[in-house]
């Protein structure tokens, strides 16, 4: 902040000596005396002589004004015509005014140069300070970037986890039903089997007691053991089959959920697709035809759990797209130095305006709560992490095709 608490140098009243600062006073004095033909003196505003000798005292005194009030006086010792005296005073005033103009201009100039310089210095200091801040920032930038990367990494992992939990949640109800169903009939079969074994025990007791053959034959018929022996085998077969079904579902689910298994392994993608279809089968209701068209493809070195997550996402999307009626086709084929996986449906399709946004995080066209809006984002990230790419083609009302290209080995 500039200080303006005292009067500016250029505004103050200058003294006669200051005003004559640029003038050769001896020559001025000589010129005045020559012009007027007599001795002259110049006095300051207080009457003190500043030019000329004392013997000229006592003549006529003319005020010399630069602005309004006299800054000094011209004293003429001899008899001089009033007009000549006035002309000499006017001439002096002009000289003094020129001096005043010079003094005002130069002191104002100095003032502005000084304040401009101070302003520049202030800006220079501010720039120096800001440069130091930026240098400091640059030095810490690498560390800050590393911290940020770590934060982003952590957030991404949480995001993946959240998305996985959402898919698992969507599956859980169907899976529970699918497991409940065989468990139900296994339990019912076992209850029946207990009744059958009781009847067999009753018959065994008759044999042990040495009952005659006729009595035994009668007991056999009474206990309906012809039917029981036949049905016992059948219900055991059915129960074993049911238990195998549960075991398979659990194995597939375990396979699917085990996506945190770190590292990559050589994986048969076709097998992975079958496993995903088994888990998702619980979601297929109504008149949906699921076609697997799996070609001869090389094994991939990949993170099998995560690729399974991608396939599950695409399959669940396709199931939602066809609603209760439609056809979903999953195909694999070799492509370049890797394979192509196609998930195709003839469902509702994606509107053109939404197509460019479907991979954006949190973009969803489903109702609030029905989707995380992360499925395709995470899928794209997983595929990208495998040096692959994911493409989509869609026509509204006709269906959607997602194609994933994966190299045999991650670069």
């Amino acid at each position, binding site marked *: 902040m*500039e200080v303006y608490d005292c009067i*500016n140098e250029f505004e103050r009243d200058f003294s006669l000596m200051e005003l004559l600062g640029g003038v050769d006073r001896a020559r001025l004095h000589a010129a005045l005396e020559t012009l007027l033909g007599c001795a002259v003196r110049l006095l300051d505003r207080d009457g003190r002589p500043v030019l000329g000798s004392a013997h000229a005292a006592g003549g006529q005194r003319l005020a010399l004004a630069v*602005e*309004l*009030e006299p800054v000094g006086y011209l004293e003429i010792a001899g008899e001089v015509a009033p007009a000549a005296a006035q002309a000499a005073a006017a001439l002096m005033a002009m000289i003094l005014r020129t001096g005043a103009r010079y003094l*005002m201009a130069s002191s*104002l100039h100095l*003032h*502005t140069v000084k*304040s401009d310089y101070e302003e520049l210095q202030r800006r220079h200091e501010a720039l120096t300070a800001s440069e130091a801040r930026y240098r400091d920032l640059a030095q810490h930038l690498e560390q800050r970037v590393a911290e940020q990367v770590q934060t982003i990494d952590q957030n991404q992992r949480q995001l993946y986890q959240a998305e996985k939990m959402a898919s698992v949640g969507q599956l859980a109800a169907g899976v529970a039903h699918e497991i409940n169903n065989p468990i139900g009939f296994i339990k019912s079969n076992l209850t029946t089997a207990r009744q059958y074994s009781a009847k067999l025990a009753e018959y065994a007791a008759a044999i042990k007691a040495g009952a005659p053959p006729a009595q035994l034959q009668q007991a056999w018929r009474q206990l309906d053991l012809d039917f029981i022996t036949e049905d016992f085998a059948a219900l055991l077969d059915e129960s074993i089959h049911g238990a195998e079904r549960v075991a398979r579902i659990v194995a597939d689910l375990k396979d699917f959920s085990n996506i945190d298994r770190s590292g990559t392994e050589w994986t048969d993608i076709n097998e992975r697709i079958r496993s995903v279809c088994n888990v998702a089968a619980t979601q297929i209701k109504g008149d949906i035809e699921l076609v697997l068209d799996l070609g001869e493809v090389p094994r991939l070195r990949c993170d099998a759990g995560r690729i399974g997550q991608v396939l599950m996402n695409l399959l669940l999307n396709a199931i939602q797209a066809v609603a209760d009626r439609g056809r979903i086709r999953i195909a694999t084929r070799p492509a370049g130095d890797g394979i192509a996986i196609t998930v195709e449906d003839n469902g509702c399709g994606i509107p053109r305006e939404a197509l460019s946004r479907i991979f954006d995080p949190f973009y969803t066209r489903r109702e609030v709560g029905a989707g995380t809006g992360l499925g395709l984002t995470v899928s794209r990230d997983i595929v990208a992490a495998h040096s692959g790419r994911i493409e989509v083609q869609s026509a509204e009302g006709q269906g959607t095709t997602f194609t994933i290209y994966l190299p045999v080995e991650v670069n």
Partner: protein
Amino acid sequence: MAELDESGSKLTIKLVYYGPAMSGKTTNLMSLHDVLRPELKGEIMTLETKNDRTLFFDLLPLGIRAPSGLLIKFKLYTVPGQVAHDSTRKAVLSRADGVVFVADSQLAQGLNNAEAFENLADNAARVGLDFETLPLVVQYNKRDLPGIVAEQDVLARWTTTSWPVVFASAVSGLGVRTTFAELLRRVYRAVDAQYQLAAAHRLDEDRFVSAAVGGAD
């Protein structure tokens, strides 16, 4: 800020003509020099460049005497209007007792007027003047030219403010004395109490103004 000299016999009052470049600030001073009839009138001192642009400032000294014998000296300054000379404008504006803002009435100058007025407010703050209480008169100059903003438009814009507006044509002297008189009244009200103009020097507002202007408008 008015200055009383050491002996207490001279009060110097500083008045500044502010405004955008080429709005007629120097012309105002020259015209005032011609039309005013105060007791004391100095020569106008111009510090200008070749092409009529003020480089530092112009100065017109005027003087009146109070019945008490007190000399009241008015120093009328103009500032350089060109944007580049802001440091000079600040130095000249510092310690001003009153300001005339000379606006250019030409339609094309609206933006320049606004920017110059904003610059006046900014610089007033920078040099420690309270813009709210600073005596200020707005003059719309160049009313003689074609293509100028209409009077009612000017008035509609400024009536919401506390500053009076005067229409002028400085080149013919029209309105310059009125502008000056309006400013003097406001300046008198601002300095009277501190310097006891009425009480100690028997100089009331009307006399203060009429002595400085001299004669009828």
